[in-house]
């Protein structure tokens, strides 16, 4: 099934589509529970995971505070090793650079490994338009591409597809019936994509970290597809969000230990590729050209603001896995690229759109996201700030007036007592009729049919305490 969510509509409408999809909730909740359990177990292998998280937050803050210097030295050192660097201010510049590369090298096929930033800049669509076949080679992304679909999770992009879905999709692709056997389906994908790897003229990857002192990139994968993309085609381009830079190899050891454990519950992923510029003259194989595209695309909107800690994010997906809202809706309700709590924070800020209010309200503010974040982004605080801005700038006048009255009433003891007494009496008289028979325009979504108010006690709490001599 392809993604039928309408991204021009709001979160509520998209969530309704997700909630109505049979089986989706079970697929999502099983996947996130498993990843959360794996994460907890993996953290136990560290002597002091909490101290390491503090250190990781420091490392990221240090890099962000010196971002200009770090990027300048990353670029200079990458170039010194024979690589090429392009700084892209926005999605359009980044896409155009890669499109020009494809044209110049006469590419007909581009193989891609999983990269959220290339999803963000909409790279595939541009390549397809110019007649370049852009193939997703991460198994999950490949499934999504065959389905005509978007990733629904930052780390595990195809959790919304069941094994039966995959068998159906691969049967259609190969015009041959495929059994619901995960290993056999994987074997089909291996053979299908191997040909693409060997014939592609352009390999595209993301980058998990840039290491400025070394002019190096670190790219993790479990399947080995990223290694193929950076090793087999004659031209490799890595697209990296500009915030993903750190200072040193020592820092990388810390970041890697937390990224792998937080994302998939592994001590380390099967493959960790460290790249430094272009293939040396004495090396037996590898691409002839190595390009690095460093992308801003709205990230600098967050620098120097109270939201800047969101740029610490290393895209591990741990906050998605524990979020009670994500669990119900899956990722497509948020955005075609970044979902979950981190998506709710960075999407509106990077895009500079006013959907902030809505996404920021797609949270219970339970703080589970903040509790698991390996780089200690105070996600639920940031969601509250976004709500404040929404309340100041975009909330309907009636809603603002309502909250003002509420704030005045409840910030004074006598007024509060009066309100609770009147409210209690009103509640007892109206009972179940509140909201169903009595129209309450401001509270309609809280009181609509299907939701029941609890029955009210005989006395307001304060009066009861007084009566009891308390």
């Amino acid at each position: 099934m392809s993604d039928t969510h309408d991204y021009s509509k709001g979160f509520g409408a998209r969530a309704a589509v997700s909630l109505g999809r049979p089986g989706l909730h079970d697929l999502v909740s099983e996947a996130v529970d498993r990843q959360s359990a794996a994460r907890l177990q993996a953290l136990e292998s560290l002597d002091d995971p909490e101290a390491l998280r503090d250190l990781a937050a420091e490392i990221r803050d240090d890099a962000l505070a010196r971002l200009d210097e770090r990027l300048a030295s990353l670029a200079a050192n990458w170039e010194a090793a024979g690589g090429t660097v392009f700084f892209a201010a926005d999605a359009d510049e980044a896409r155009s650079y890669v499109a020009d590369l494809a044209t110049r090298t006469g590419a007909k096929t581009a193989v891609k490994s999983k990269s959220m930033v290339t999803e963000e800049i909409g790279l595939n669509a541009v390549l397809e338009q110019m007649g370049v076949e852009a193939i997703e080679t991460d198994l999950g992304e490949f499934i999504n591409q065959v389905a005509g679909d978007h990733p629904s999770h930052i780390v595990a992009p195809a959790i919304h597809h069941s094994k039966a879905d995959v068998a159906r999709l691969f049967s259609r692709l190969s015009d041959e019936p495929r059994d619901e056997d995960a290993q056999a389906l994987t074997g089909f994908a291996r053979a299908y994509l191997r040909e693409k790897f060997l014939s592609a003229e352009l390999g595209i990857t993301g980058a998990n970290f840039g290491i400025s002192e070394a002019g190096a990139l670190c790219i993790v994968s479990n399947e080995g597809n990223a290694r193929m993309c950076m090793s087999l085609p004659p031209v490799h381009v890595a697209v990296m969000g500009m915030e993903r830079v750190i200072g040193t190899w020592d820092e990388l050891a810390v970041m890697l230990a937390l990224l792998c454990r937080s994302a998939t519950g592994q001590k380390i992923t099967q493959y960790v590729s460290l790249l430094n510029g272009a293939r040396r003259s004495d090396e037996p194989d590898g691409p002839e050209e190595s390009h690095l595209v460093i992308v801003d695309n709205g990230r600098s909107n967050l620098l120097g603001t109270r939201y800047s800690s969101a740029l610490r994010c290393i895209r591990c997906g741990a906050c998605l896995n524990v979020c009670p809202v994500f669990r119900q809706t899956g990722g497509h309700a948020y955005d075609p690229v970044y979902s979950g709590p981190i998506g709710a924070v960075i999407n509106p800020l990077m895009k500079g759109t006013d959907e902030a209010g809505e996404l920021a309200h797609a949270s219970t503010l339970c703080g589970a996201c903040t509790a698991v974040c390996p780089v200690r982004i105070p996600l639920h605080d940031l969601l509250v700030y976004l709500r404040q801005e929404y309340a100041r700038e975009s909330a309907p006048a009636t809603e603002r007036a309502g909250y003002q009255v509420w704030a005045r009433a409840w910030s004074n003891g006598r007024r509060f007592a009066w309100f609770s007494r009147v409210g209690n009496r009103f509640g007892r008289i109206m009972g179940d009729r509140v909201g169903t028979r009595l129209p309450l325009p401001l509270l309609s979504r809280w009181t609509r049919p299907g939701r029941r108010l609890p029955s009210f006690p005989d006395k307001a709490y304060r009066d009861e305490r007084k009566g009891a001599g308390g």
Partner: protein
Amino acid sequence: MDRTLFLERIRRRLGDVKPPPVRIPHDWASEIDDPVARFEQELDAVGGKVHRFRGGPTADALAPILQARELPAVLIVRDGVPEDIEAAVTRSGGKVRWWPDASREEVTSADIGVTGALWGVAETGTIVVSSSPPSGRAPSLLPPVHVAFVASERIVPSTAELFRRIASMTELPSNLVLITGPSKSADIGLELTLGVHGPAELHVVLTA
């Protein structure tokens, strides 16, 4: 965008007050008593196989891996592997193809790739393979089976120590890859599958 402008735009948004530089404590990784035993245990846990090899003809070490297949084509890097490896492969019924002299077709159709490794990491069961000669990239990536020879003394305790070693390399290759077990995925129905793109089997032969 022009680099100077790009970086200037960032600089303008950052304050002048910088946090003190981060100091990474030397000892954040757990201590390990017996790195070789730990390496074996960790690699085993992620589905790789460790073979301890204490001298004698290399055929003894390779036989169990090669004899599981019929007439396997074995792609072998020219250095960093035991000198008698050709005899070992032939005796076990395999055909030798030398890297990087083999043709593209011979490389892409090889059944087994044999390389050396720069280091092993005890904490994670990881080996490190370089794109520099002799290894290159393809022999540890394209064949469905990867066999790596690693000297036990090259096993470092932790990834923290590994990155200190990497930091002190006089010259970096264009690509170092940390390999920890066979290629795997859980993208289909959350089921573990092996050999998605990289090798489905990883054998590490620890030499004394």
